[in-house]
């Protein structure tokens, strides 16, 4: 409980800092919601009037205070550009990003765990060597380029999905999930490559420890040793990595969303930034930050489950 309380306080502090930074940043960037809303037909008088109406002439801290007060009372405001309630807009897009992230995560796990174990057990073999090189190359691909190539290969040549044919989850969940498969793959591949590498090296270093030798000398079969003792201990760094990867994916699938035309949080964030639609930007950032925090908490709990010696302070 104390743990949860402490985490809550740090989260609130972080959120406070991030939202304040974002607000200040918007103050520094040229252009504001009023010019964005009025476009090329605007006269200086009309811009001034709209700025007044939106309260953009107030000192930045007053504006921040107004936003924070609204947020704390559950009112995230209205999008300047879409004129829709921000809460509704963000909640509508949240499942997209979450599903994409979960799918990518599942892919990472199913790719990296078997491969990691295999390469560790056959370390030095040619398969290990080949997988190592392939992984290195995958990690060297710029993400957007990988996305384009995946679209080209699986969408254009093999016709396994319709490029740009995103289906809303409200319309057909199966269609939604099947469209997200390849974007998820594009996100997962580089991370899976890193995970394989990590799992392999932690398995190898773990298997050199004394207790493993002891287990061998007691006549345990290799397989048993690997699963029972080594894997369990080697999982700790992997879990840390997966936690970080998950957090990273929530905040950073922006480019893949853009490449595959997926209307997730990243796209909303990007367009809101360029429209100076800061109620939306703030809401998305808070949303991402909370998700990341939840992931971090989950990682801590899983540590405890895998290794009871690690207790949450």
């Amino acid at each position: 409980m104390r743990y949860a309380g402490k985490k809550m306080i740090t989260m609130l502090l972080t959120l406070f800092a991030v939202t304040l930074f974002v607000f200040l940043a918007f103050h520094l960037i040229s252009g504001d919601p009023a010019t964005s809303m009025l476009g090329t037909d605007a006269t200086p008088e009309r811009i001034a009037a709209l700025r007044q109406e939106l309260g953009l002439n107030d000192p930045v801290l007053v504006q921040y205070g107004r936003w924070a007060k609204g947020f704390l009372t559950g009112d995230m405001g209205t999008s300047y550009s879409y004129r829709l309630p921000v809460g509704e807009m963000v909640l509508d897009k949240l499942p997209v990003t979450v599903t994409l992230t979960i799918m990518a995560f599942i892919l990472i796990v199913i790719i990296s765990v078997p491969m990691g174990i295999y390469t560790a057990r056959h370390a030095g073999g040619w398969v290990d060597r080949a997988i190592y090189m392939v992984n290195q190359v995958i990690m060297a691909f710029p993400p957007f380029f990988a996305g384009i190539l995946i679209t080209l290969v699986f969408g254009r040549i093999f016709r396994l999905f319709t490029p740009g044919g995103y289906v809303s989850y409200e319309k057909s969940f199966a269609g939604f999930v099947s469209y997200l498969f390849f974007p998820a793959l594009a996100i997962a591949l580089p991370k899976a490559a890193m995970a394989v590498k990590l799992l392999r090296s932690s398995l190898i270093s773990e298997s050199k420890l004394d207790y493993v030798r002891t287990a061998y000398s007691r006549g345990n079969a290799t397989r048993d040793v690997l699963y029972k003792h080594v894997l369990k201990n080697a999982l700790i760094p992997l879990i840390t990595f997966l936690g970080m990867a998950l957090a990273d994916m929530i905040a950073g699938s922006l480019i893949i969303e853009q490449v595959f035309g997926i209307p997730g949080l990243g796209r909303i964030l990007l367009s809101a930034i360029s429209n100076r639609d800061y109620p939306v930007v703030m809401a998305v950032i808070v949303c991402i930050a909370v998700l990341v925090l939840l992931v971090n908490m989950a990682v801590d709990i899983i540590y405890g489950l895998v290794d009871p010696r690690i207790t949450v302070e």
Partner: protein
Amino acid sequence: MKRKGLKGLPMVFVLTTLAIALSGCSGDKKEETSSQITIGIPQDIEESLDPHKAVGAGTEEILFNLFEGLVKPESDGSLIPAVASAYEESEGGRVYTFTLREGVKFHDGSAVTAEDVKYSIDKCADTSNGGPLVEAYSNIESFEIKDASTVVMTLKEADTEFLAYMTTAIIPTANENPDTNPIGTGPYKFVSRSPQENFVVERFEDYWGEPAGIRDVTFRICSNTDSLVMDLEGGSIDMFARVTATQAAELSDRFEILEGTMNLVQAMYLNHEAEIFQDVRVRKALCYAIDPEEIMMMVSDGKGTEIGSSMFPAFGKYYMEELNDTYNQDIEKAKRLLEEAGYANGLSFTITVPSNYQQHIDTAQVLVEQFKAIGVDAKIQLIEWDSWLSDVYQNRDYEATVVGVDASSLTGSSLLRRFTSTAGNNFVNYSNADYDAAFEEGISSTDDARKTKYYKECERILAEDAVNVYIQDLPEFVALNKKYTGYEFYPLYVQDIAKLRLAQ
């Protein structure tokens, strides 16, 4: 227990993923429904859906299908009666009388009344928010309801072009959420929108005129325009209105490529407040340095229409092709002019370009190279559209910028007014008494020949005074799946979807 979990779980994952992947294959495409079309658009409609408040060109071209004014533009550039069935011009263009069409309905089923018309016009003429929504409406003296089907508009000063502004959308007095729930009288009505995903409309069955050819229309936001060819070939979109020359060349014969022009004046606009551009010799030198042909070659495979002043060919009678030859590339002459102006050792300036327009960025890159030949060192600075609006357009804090300026209405003045010294949107800070006088003559003359003469005089001044470095009217390539036909180009920035129909 644990061991089993570890081994079993991946298996489940593999199976689900396989199932997902397979459903992806068999899911293929939906069967061709009788009349529906998906149209790709490069950016979302990220603003109010109230036609009077909407400002984005991308929004206006779609809302064109939802709303109509008393009159509406046709593809040949003429104005045809819409909500009004007839109109009459009297007192030399000072009084306009409109007869409302019988039986025109809004999308919510209610009939259009004279009150709705007055409300719509009044809303755009309202000055309480720092100025009228339609600037030209400051010329309206009164707008009165004569009887249930007749409205009379009186202007302060006669203006024979004023009808072109009566395309202002007629909206119902009673609409609580015009920002998110657009109700108009157009051939299509709003169904739904999902931010960054799509915008859906369907045919309005009670439309007064010829009903639209296709029932369901989805505008899908294509965030990555680089994969448009794949999107079109894969079938996720059936049409895209502005593919590049390269993309047009890559599309298979399942698509028809229609070629038109974007109807805008692409130029390197110069800030006349900037010290270097106050000298006409410098401006002329820049005009002599460039070769529009080469720019077109580089940017759009040689397609495009050269222009020499702030007017494009779609305007027919006002367009002056001869002005294209005011400056033909002449490096020596350009250098000499620079020398005379005291820039023998070269000069440098920054070209600010909005980062969301690839064709303007590409043009600017070619310009930079062409300027190098006369010893001018130009730097490109990309900024976001919104920063462009505030820094360049509103605050006029820039040296040069490459953009395309379009006409907001079908009048010559919509392109020429901005260069008069007092115009609010004179973002190049141009000031020339001769120009102001010629424009004043043009706008106030009721005789068409005389008006044309003075507008041409304005264009000539713009060209000869090298106000801006004029380049071209950009080519527009529309990719349309051959399942559909009937696309028509307009001299304005609109997409008329109602004219599309299935090809058979």
